[in-house]
């Protein structure tokens, strides 16, 4: 089933996206956070069986995190980006790992890098970082240069040598 037909059936607004060098149709949809699960189920039942990725964008000026669920259909070769917005000061959403098992790992990564809490996912343990003790590093207000200078620049050379 084509994505456009599904959008009409679900009665959501969509926008077509254009990418240089890739003619395959791709759509961006802003959906209500409460309805996201039903919409993903609907898409999954109608050919969009490939969950490509879950990504997160920090819109620090608006005070929001955008979560983007990226689906793909091998039947119609269409990409669909379903995005929801959650408040930045209390980043919480429910886990959707029962729909696609690979979502668990993406949620783990976003929890580690942005600090978003996914309710219902009990495996939000560290994934890439080790011995981390600061705020999540992919947030826009995290100053990576300052952190690197403080943490690694303050360590003294062992046998003399020049300071950095």
């Amino acid at each position: 089933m084509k994505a456009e037909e599904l959008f009409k059936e679900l009665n959501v607004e969509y926008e077509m996206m254009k990418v240089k060098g890739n003619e395959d149709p791709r759509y961006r949809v802003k959906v209500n956070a409460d309805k996201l699960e039903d919409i993903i189920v609907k898409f999954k039942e109608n050919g969009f069986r490939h969950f490509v990725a879950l990504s997160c964008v920090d819109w620090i000026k608006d005070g929001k995190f955008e979560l983007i669920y990226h689906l793909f259909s091998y039947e119609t070769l269409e990409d669909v980006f379903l995005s929801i917005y959650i408040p930045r000061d209390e980043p919480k959403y429910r886990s959707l790992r029962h729909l696609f098992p690979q979502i668990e790992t993406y949620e783990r990564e976003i929890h580690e890098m942005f600090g978003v809490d996914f309710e219902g996912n009990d495996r939000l343990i560290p994934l890439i970082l080790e011995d981390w003790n600061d705020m999540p590093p992919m947030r826009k207000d995290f100053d990576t240069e300052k952190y690197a200078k403080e943490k690694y620049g303050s360590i003294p050379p062992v046998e003399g040598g020049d300071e950095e």
Partner: protein
Amino acid sequence: MNENPFPSIIPEKDWKKIQRMLSKRSLWMIHFCTGCGAMEMPPTMTSRYDMERFGIIPMATPRQADLLLVTGYVAVKTLKRIVRVYEQMQDPKYVISFGSCPINGGLYWDSYNTIKRLDKYIPVDIYIAGCMPRPEAIMDGFLKLMKDIDEGRADGWLRYRKYYDKYRANQMRVFRRWDE
């Protein structure tokens, strides 16, 4: 190093010299790859540049290896494994820091998760600069290391023993815990 089997026949100084002369010709390199520099090792190992003609061969286990190559950026997670591997290697052991990232951070100078200078955490015998160093540069580095070993200047393993507390203190400043 091994003990002198004939102290009455071979003077201690000569025995050390003989050992150095022999050990520089059979460096076994632990097959431990970090970062992107490991990409330059296959041409160095295989027929085109053929490092085996200098007696350097890759080895799978740290206990049988003399040479540790840190071939690229070192994340905190990797550093823990590097220190583990380095401490498992038997004396005498040598470290080559490869590419610009373990020297001063390189591309990752402002990264939150990569260490900037490897020699704050383990002793380094030879630096090969470049991003990436070509196999010619690697061979040159190996030859310089062999010369240093012959002349007794490659003493990183002795320095690690001497300044062990300082090295360990620096390591524990980036690790929160050691046992995971």
